[in-house]
C-alpha cells in the first residue's frame, strides 16, 4: 500500500477532529491550551481568526466540533469546546489594539454587502484590512442579522453581540440601516466592483391548514422573536403551542415562558431521534418545564367565535420501509391553546433580484445558482453566502461562507480567476523539550465533562434578558481544559529510524499501533491490527517499508490519546510528537 502522505496538510488536519469538523476550521486544541495557560486574550484572538465571533459563538454555536471530538469516542463525552470558547471571550482583556489595522489609503475597490448578518460581517472583516470600501445595506435599524433578531437575549446578551459586531463596523464599514435593497439591478448600476448577498433566509414557513386565517393568534416564529426583540410584543397568553422542533422552536418556547406562557408545549411530527434541535437546547427547554409532544401532525386550527381555542392533530406512528420512515395515522386529538407559534422552517426570498440581469435561478427551488467553491452566482462579481446561498444553515457556516466569498471577491477585484483558491499550508514542529518533557501536558485527565451552571428558574423568568448560562467556574475551566487530548500534537513517524523493537506497540494504551506485513487493501489491513480499526471515518496511517524487515508501521487514528508514550518509549526517535498548525488561506493571504 502507498504510505500515508503526511506532507499534505489534509492528513494531520483530519486527525484534529474538532478542527476538521468546524466549518471555519478553528484551531481548537491550541485555543484550549491558551485558556489553560490563562492567556484568554490570545485564545480569543486565535478564535477570532477563524470564527470572527467567539463571544457570540461561545454561547450559540451549533458546535459541529463536539460530536466530532475524539474525547467523545474515548470516554463518551466530548470536551465542552463551545463553552470554553466563552471562557476566553468572557475573561479576555480589551482587544481593540489587536484588531487588524485598516489602511488609510483605500485600494479603490468598492464592494456592496447586502444584509448585516454573520456572513456579511465576515466579508467586511476580511476585506476592510485589505483596503476595500464596504457599503453594507441593512433593512433593519441594527446590525447582527438573525444573531440579533432570532436569538433571545437570555441566550446571547446584547452587550456581547454589540461588541463583536461593532468591532467590524468600526473598521470603517459604510453601514446603511433601514435601507432594504429593492433592486439588485439598480444597485449594480451604482458601479460596485463586487456585490455580496448575505441577506439570509428571512421568510418563516406558513402552515396553510383549515382555520389558519380565521384567527390572529397564530404567529410566525422568527417574526415573533423579532417583535419580542423590538419590544412590540411583551406578553403572551398562558397556553402556547409551538409547531416544529428545531432550534427556533426552542427559542420560541423558552421566550414564551418568559412572557407569561404557563402551559407551553412543543409539537413534533416525529420522534426524538429525528428532532432538528440540538440535544442541549432540548434539555434546556425541558428544564424550564416545557413539554415536548412527539408524533403529532397539525390538522387544523380550532377557532370558536373568532377565538383560537385549540389545535387538532393527527397522531402518527412511524415505521421504517426500505430505509425510509413512513407514517401512519392512528388517531386524532385536540390540544387546547390560546396561541400558536409556527417554527417549521425558513425560506429564502429574492423578490428584489431581477431575473433578467444574467443571474440564473434554479427553476425548481427558485434559488440563485451559486458555485459551491467560489460562492459566485452566474453573474460574475455577484456572490452569495450564509443562509442566502443555499438555505438555512447556522452561524458558523455563515462565517465560513463569508471567508470564502471574501477570497473570491478579492480575486475578482484583483483580476484573478475566482476558481484559483490560495492553498492551505501547515507548520509541523517537534514538541520535544527534553527527556520525556513535552511542550504540552500529555497526561490523560479522567475528569468527566463539566456541567454548565444555570441561573435559577425564578430569576430566569423574571426578565427575558437574564442570561441562563452562568459560564464555567474557574475550577470547572481548569479541569475541562485538561480533558482535551491535544490531537494537534501529532504522532509523527520516520520509517528509516525504526528498529522494530515493538516498544511503541507494547506501550500504546489504546492499542492503536501495529507492525505488520503489507496489506492488499485498507479494509483488509483494518481487520488484522492490535485492535481492529472498526471506525472507517478515521484514517489509517501506513508507513513506508521498515528498514530491517520491510514490514509497515500502521496506526489507527481513531482513539489515539496523543499521550506521547510511543515517542517516550521510542529509542531512536522514529516516533516524535509534533505540533501541527493549519495555515488557512484567507483573503489576501495563504500559501502560494
Amino acid at each position, binding site marked *: 500500500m502507498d504510505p500515508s502522505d503526511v506532507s499534505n496538510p489534509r492528513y494531520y488536519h483530519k486527525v484534529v477532529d474538532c478542527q476538521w469538523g468546524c466549518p471555519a476550521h478553528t484551531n481548537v486544541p491550541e485555543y484550549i491550551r491558551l485558556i489553560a495557560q490563562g492567556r484568554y486574550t490570545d485564545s480569543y484572538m486565535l478564535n477570532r481568526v477563524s470564527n470572527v465571533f467567539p463571544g457570540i459563538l461561545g454561547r450559540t454555536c451549533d458546535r459541529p466540533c463536539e460530536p466530532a471530538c475524539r474525547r467523545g469516542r474515548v470516554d463518551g463525552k466530548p470536551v465542552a469546546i463551545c463553552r470554553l470558547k466563552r471562557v476566553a471571550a468572557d475573561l479576555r482583556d480589551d482587544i481593540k489594539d489587536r484588531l487588524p489595522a485598516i489602511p488609510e489609503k483605500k485600494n479603490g475597490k468598492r464592494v456592496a454587502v447586502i444584509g448585516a448578518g454573520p456572513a456579511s460581517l465576515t466579508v467586511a472583516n476580511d476585506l476592510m484590512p485589505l483596503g476595500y470600501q464596504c457599503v453594507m445595506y441593512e433593512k433593519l435599524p441594527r446590525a447582527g442579522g438573525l444573531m440579533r433578531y432570532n436569538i433571545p437575549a437570555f441566550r446571547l446578551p446584547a452587550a456581547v453581540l454589540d461588541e463583536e459586531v461593532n468591532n467590524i463596523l468600526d473598521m470603517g464599514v459604510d453601514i446603511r440601516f433601514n435601507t432594504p435593497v429593492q433592486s439588485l439591478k439598480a444597485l449594480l448600476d451604482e458601479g460596485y466592483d463586487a456585490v455580496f448577498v448575505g441577506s439570509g433566509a428571512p421568510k418563516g414557513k406558513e402552515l396553510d391548514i383549515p382555520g389558519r386565517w380565521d384567527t390572529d393568534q397564530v404567529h410566525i416564529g422568527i417574526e415573533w422573536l423579532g417583535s419580542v426583540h423590538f419590544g412590540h410584543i411583551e406578553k403572551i397568553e398562558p397556553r402556547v403551542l409551538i409547531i416544529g422542533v428545531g432550534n427556533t422552536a426552542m427559542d420560541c418556547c423558552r421566550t414564551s415562558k418568559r412572557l407569561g406562557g404557563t402551559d407551553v408545549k412543543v409539537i413534533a411530527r416525529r420522534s426524538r431521534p429525528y428532532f432538528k434541535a440540538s440535544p442541549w437546547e432540548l434539555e434546556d427547554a425541558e428544564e424550564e418545564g416545557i413539554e415536548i409532544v412527539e408524533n403529532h401532525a397539525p390538522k387544523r386550527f380550532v377557532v370558536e367565535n373568532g377565538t383560537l381555542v385549540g389545535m387538532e392533530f393527527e397522531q402518527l406512528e412511524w415505521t421504517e420501509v426500505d430505509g425510509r420512515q413512513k407514517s401512519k395515522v392512528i388517531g386524532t386529538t385536540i390540544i387546547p391553546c390560546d396561541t400558536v407559534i409556527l417554527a417549521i422552517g425558513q425560506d429564502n426570498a429574492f423578490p428584489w433580484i431581477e431575473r433578467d440581469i444574467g443571474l440564473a435561478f434554479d427553476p425548481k427551488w427558485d434559488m440563485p445558482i451559486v458555485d459551491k467553491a467560489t460562492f459566485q452566482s452566474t453573474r460574475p462579481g455577484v456572490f452569495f453566502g450564509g443562509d442566502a446561498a443555499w438555505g438555512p444553515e447556522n452561524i458558523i457556516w455563515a462565517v465560513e461562507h463569508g471567508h470564502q466569498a471574501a477570497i473570491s471577491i478579492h480575486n475578482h477585484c484583483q483580476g484573478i480567476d475566482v476558481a484559483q483558491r490560495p492553498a492551505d499550508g501547515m507548520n509541523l514542529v517537534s514538541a520535544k523539550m527534553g527527556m520525556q518533557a513535552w511542550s504540552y501536558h500529555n497526561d490523560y485527565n479522567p475528569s468527566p465533562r463539566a456541567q454548565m451552571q444555570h441561573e435559577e428558574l425564578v430569576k430566569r423568568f423574571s426578565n427575558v434578558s437574564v442570561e441562563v448560562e452562568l459560564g464555567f467556574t474557574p475550577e470547572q475551566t481548569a479541569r475541562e481544559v485538561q480533558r482535551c487530548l491535544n490531537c494537534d500534537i501529532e504522532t509523527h513517524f520516520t520509517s528509516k529510524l525504526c528498529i522494530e*523493537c*515493538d516498544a511503541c506497540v507494547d506501550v500504546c*494504551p489504546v492499542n492503536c499501533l501495529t507492525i505488520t506485513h503489507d496489506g492488499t487493501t485498507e479494509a483488509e489491513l483494518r481487520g488484522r491490527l492490535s485492535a*481492529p480499526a472498526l471506525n472507517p471515518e478515521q484514517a489509517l496511517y501506513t508507513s513506508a517499508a521498515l528498514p530491517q524487515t520491510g514490514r509497515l508501521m500502521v496506526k489507527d487514528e481513531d482513539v489515539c490519546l496523543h499521550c506521547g508514550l510511543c515517542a*517516550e*518509549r521510542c529509542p531512536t526517535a522514529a516516533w516524535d510528537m509534533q505540533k501541527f498548525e493549519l495555515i488557512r488561506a484567507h483573503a489576501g493571504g495563504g500559501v502560494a
Partner: protein
Amino acid sequence: MTSIAKPPVTHPSLPKNALGLTRRDYEGAMSTLCAGCGHDSVTAALVQAFWELDVPPHRAAKMSGIGCSSKTTAYFMRQSHGFNGVHGRMPSLATGANAANRGLMYIGISGDGDSLSIGMGQLSHAIRRNVNLLYVLENNGVYGLTKGQFSASADIGSTSKKGDTNDQRPIDPVLLALSLGATFVARGFSGDKAQLVPILKAGLRHNGFALIDVISPCVSFNDHVGSTKSYRYTREHYEELAPVDFVPMRREITAPEASGGAMSIAMHDGSVVRFRKTGDDYDPTNRDAAYAHVRRHQERGEIVTGLLYIDEKTQDLHALNRTTATPLVDLPYEALCPGNAALQELMAEYR
C-alpha cells in the same frame, strides 16, 4: 522510562477473554527499563500469553532475582503473587514456593547474568528437579545494569559498545538445558511475538521445567554494529524452526490431524502443541538431534529459534518426590501439623 502512567482507557474494539478481561487487565506497573528494551516486548508477549490462556491473575506467582530482566515481573499481572529475591537465587525460591503450593502457576524471569553466572548452579538444579515452572531467560549478552560488560552468553568475536572484542567462550542456555535433561527447551526473540507467544503458552502448560531462552536486545549497550545480540543481527541470522500452534484443552480441535510431516504433541492437561509442516524433518522429541541441530546451525552463525525439544512423559518435582496432591495451604491444620505423637513416631524411625 516514561513521564506518565498508561492512561486507563482502552480501544473500543479490544477483545475480552473467557474471564471477561482485556489484555490491559494483565498489565503491571509502568516499565522503568530503557526505551526500546527487548524485555518490555517479552513482557507484552507474556501479557498476551496469559490473556489468551485465560489465566486468573491471582492464581499465578512471578519469581525473579536481580538484573534488568528481573524487573520484568513488576510489569505484568499486577494482581498476581510474586517474590523478587537475591541475585541468582530465583530457582530456589520458585522451588520452595512450588513445593508448598503446587496449585499456582509459576513464572520465573531471569537474565543471562542472573542465570548463567551467579545463578548457574541454581538453574541447573531446578532443571534437574524438573520444577513445574516457566523459566524465561531474557538474554542480551551484556550486563546492562552495570553499563554493558560482556556477560557469560556473549559470543566470541562480538564487540562491546566501546569496541572491545570478547574472546571467551559463551555459555549457551539452550545447549546447557538440553545436556542437563530439561524437558522443555525453546529459543525465542523479543522482536517476534508471533513465534514467542505460542511457545510461552506451551511452556506455561508444560508439566515440568520449561526453559525459554529469549534473545532480548539491550538497546542501550548491545544494539550496535559488532554485537551478535542486536535487533538487526538477530533478524539477519534468524533461523526459525517449524512454527508451533498452541491449542488449549477447552477448544475443540476441528482442523484435521497433523499430516505430511507436521506433528502434534499432547500436553498433560489435554492441550496440544502442533508443529506446522516445514521442509526439514526436524524431530522436537529427539534430544540428541535437537542438540546436534542447534550446534550445526551455530557453526554456520545462525540462531535457531522455536520449540527445540519437548518431553511430556516425564515427572515433575512433586511426582518425583511423591508429595501430597493437595497444596499445603488447602490441607486441614491437623494433617499439616499432626501433633507431638506423630512427631515422636517419626523421630523414632531415625533412632
